[in-house]
């Protein structure tokens, strides 16, 4: 058995050449989502593209609220550059400290708690360049914040796991970052009470940056983050607290630490599987019952749009639960030959798209 040939492309042409010269292509970034790592394969016509060499910002004009960077760029370097100009990635991608790359974040389709305010990855990715399974360098979208020309190929790349093409460059819309943040911690007597509070907050006109439901010793607890001018923040938080009928403000260092820990999944046991599951409010009671019974840890983030599930055992059981609830998920950590769990729709459309972008089956199935 041979090991997988690893190539480190330095240019888009390198990626094109690698694809044309190999029968099977696997892609990796920083490896921050091990369940999405390429399966171990033998055969000397297979190659693993390590995208970390293809990095760097191509274009960034802060006044445009747009940047373009190569796919292997780390989120950390992007975030640092944006911060110099008071801007940020509003969709709050996870795993920044663990080295996640821009391309890997798109390919996995990941947004974090902060997506609550302005939207997720799909709302901020405005352009991509990728190399398809025939070695063609394809551009979709553009570099302006508003654009309706041609099919929206960037959307196809979101969550495509490197199986429709190898993303080599991406353009994002960005926003000015709130100059200050404040977070309120509100314990809830029960899950039902917490969900009622979430529904109330979702329908309210409070501008919330993020709000997550977590379990502290199995006690449902809401963390509600506000952002904006420092001068107005204390009053806004007090108003929110009064509206909620309680809650304690997190002190400064804890405030940032809480959201950072969430972003890095520091709360999830490292050896457990970690699964992203899109949810809606009404499905959470049934889902949570199953998760609690199985001893899983979980967070419902971004106004309960997204469940992060830390799962102790075999993913087969979680797959069964999610399927029963008509939910689907993506494993980021854990043993998984196939990273998808639960139901998936649009399979026939994906198959049609894949026949166009990967007619020679160079990429793994999707």
């Amino acid at each position, binding site marked *: 058995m041979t090991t997988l040939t690893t190539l480190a492309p330095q240019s888009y042409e390198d990626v094109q050449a690698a694809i044309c010269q190999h029968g099977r292509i696997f892609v990796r970034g920083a490896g921050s989502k091990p369940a999405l790592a390429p399966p171990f394969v033998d055969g000397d016509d297979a190659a693993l593209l390590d995208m970390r060499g293809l990095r760097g910002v191509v274009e960034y004009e802060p006044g*445009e609220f747009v940047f373009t960077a190569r796919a292997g760029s780390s989120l950390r370097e992007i975030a640092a550059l944006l911060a110099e100009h008071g801007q940020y990635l509003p969709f709050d991608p996870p795993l920044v400290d663990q080295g996640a790359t821009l391309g890997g974040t798109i390919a996995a389709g990941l947004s974090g708690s902060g997506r609550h305010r302005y939207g997720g990855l799909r709302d901020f990715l405005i352009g991509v360049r990728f190399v398809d399974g025939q070695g063609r360098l*394809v551009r979709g979208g553009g570099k302006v914040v508003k654009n309706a020309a041609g099919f929206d190929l960037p959307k196809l790349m979101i969550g495509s796991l490197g199986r429709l093409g190898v993303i080599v460059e991406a353009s994002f819309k960005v*926003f000015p970052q709130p100059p200050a943040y404040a977070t309120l911690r509100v314990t809830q007597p029960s899950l039902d009470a917490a969900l009622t509070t979430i529904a109330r907050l979702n329908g309210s006109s409070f*501008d919330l940056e993020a709000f997550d439901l977590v379990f502290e010793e199995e006690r449902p607890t809401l963390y509600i983050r506000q952002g904006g001018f420092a001068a107005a923040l204390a009053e806004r938080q007090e*108003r929110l607290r009064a509206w909620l009928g309680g809650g304690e403000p997190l002190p400064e260092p804890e405030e940032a630490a809480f959201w950072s820990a969430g972003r890095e999944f520091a709360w999830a046991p490292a050896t457990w599987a970690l699964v992203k599951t899109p949810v809606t409010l*009404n499905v959470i009671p049934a889902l949570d019952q199953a998760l609690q019974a199985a001893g899983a840890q979980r967070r419902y983030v971004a106004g309960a749009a997204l469940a992060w599930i830390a799962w102790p055992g075999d993913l087969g059981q979680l797959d069964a639960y999610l399927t029963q609830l008509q939910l689907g998920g993506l494993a980021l950590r854990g043993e998984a030959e196939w990273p998808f769990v639960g139901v998936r729709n649009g399979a026939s459309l*994906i198959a049609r798209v894949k026949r*166009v972008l990967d007619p020679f089956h160079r990429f793994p199935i999707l």
Partner: protein
Amino acid sequence: MNLDGLLSELERRVPADRLLRKSAQLAPYESDALTAFRSRPAAVLLAATQEEVIQAVRLCHRYGVPFVARGSGTSLSGGSLPVENGLVIALNRLNRILRLDPAQRIAVVEPGVINLDVSRAAAPHGLYYAPDPSSQLICTIGGNVAFNSGGAHCLKYGMTVNHVLGLKAVLPDGEVVQLGGESLEQVGPDLTGFFVGSEGLFGVALEIALRLLPKPECYRTVLAAYDSLQAAGDAVASVVASGLLPGAMEIMDALAIEAAEAAVQAGYPRDAAALLIVELEGERIQVEAEFAHLMQVIEGSNPKTVAVAKDDADRARIWKGRKSAFSAVGRLSPDYLVQDGVVPRSRLGEALATIERLSQDYGLRVANVFHAGDGNLHPLILFNGRIPGELERAEALAGEIIQMCIALGGSITGEHGVGMEKRQHMSSMFTETNLQVMAELRRALDPGELANRGKMFPQGEAPALHAHGPHPLEAQGLISRM
């Protein structure tokens, strides 16, 4: 193509009053809001149910007949122009809001639901549907989805695609698919997003799950007048550089101000060369803090005058002027073409100067009303189609503006779509390979290229150009172009 086969099958399934065949019945469907193009379909099916739409698409597929789905026909890019001798599937009767769930902030609607009706239905719950094209009183969600419509609030809130969570659609070969869901999140690929903006080429959306937003607690609307368009453009750049994120930033030039004033008496200063509208929105305490900041920036941008909306009525008046500006300018001229290019915001001044020069070179008046916050220009080229050669000159001028947008690193369309109108410019914006990949994707879904044939892609048969006159609905004041 077996048109007779299709028509006889449809006749057997649909009552005669919902299958239009007579010349007089077909006339209103010959064009949409881009009236320069007209084309006569063989028939119009007024579909009453989703099942009828599915059956019609399947029959078109079986008999090889091209079809165009149509809502209110407000497309400014000729997106709902019929295919000559094809079928038009009219969706206006599929106008049910199937579900409105305030706790989850979603509405599930059929494609014929009118844009503003979603916000109206959501209003009692303190919610609204954010995308607000100027035609929102009449345009339908199905058309918004097909063309990824925008509006005045796109910088902060995005376009239609950012508000569509999932959909049920019939693909051009009759397969019915469910894409996305009702969660704000999804596991990829983002097929919902891929479908939105496909200009009808991927089939017909039958049910659409829309995301609703809570209405902002408070607005602050500022109206600043300037001596030049350049100065107004610079003010936009300053606002952006200051770290503020207004919900809307709009600019109108002198011609547009004059027309809007004449039409709706919005109270705009008439002697200004350019007018900037900036609107902040959100929690009152935050908005007040931002407002103080904004006023500093605006004062520093050397305005002639600055006014602030005193109350809701004042705000509504300012927006009424803005939203009616296009139809108002249109009344200054027998005919006009609307462009929809996008330039990087930092190139706005340059773009406007070029448009002004082109206007002089071509001897045609151009009014400018645009979404400055996101660089989306809407130059309105005035001409008289009865004067031989003017339509051609206007089109040539429009083409130069589009090419300028591409050269400045922008896009040929921000929110109107490519449709019929801009398809010849696609090859300037995308390489041959890019277009090839898009064409292959299209054929993977529609091997016969039946769905909205002739749109988006550079090749394709061109219908007859007609030089003169507004659309019947426009003449009635029911639609406007923006």
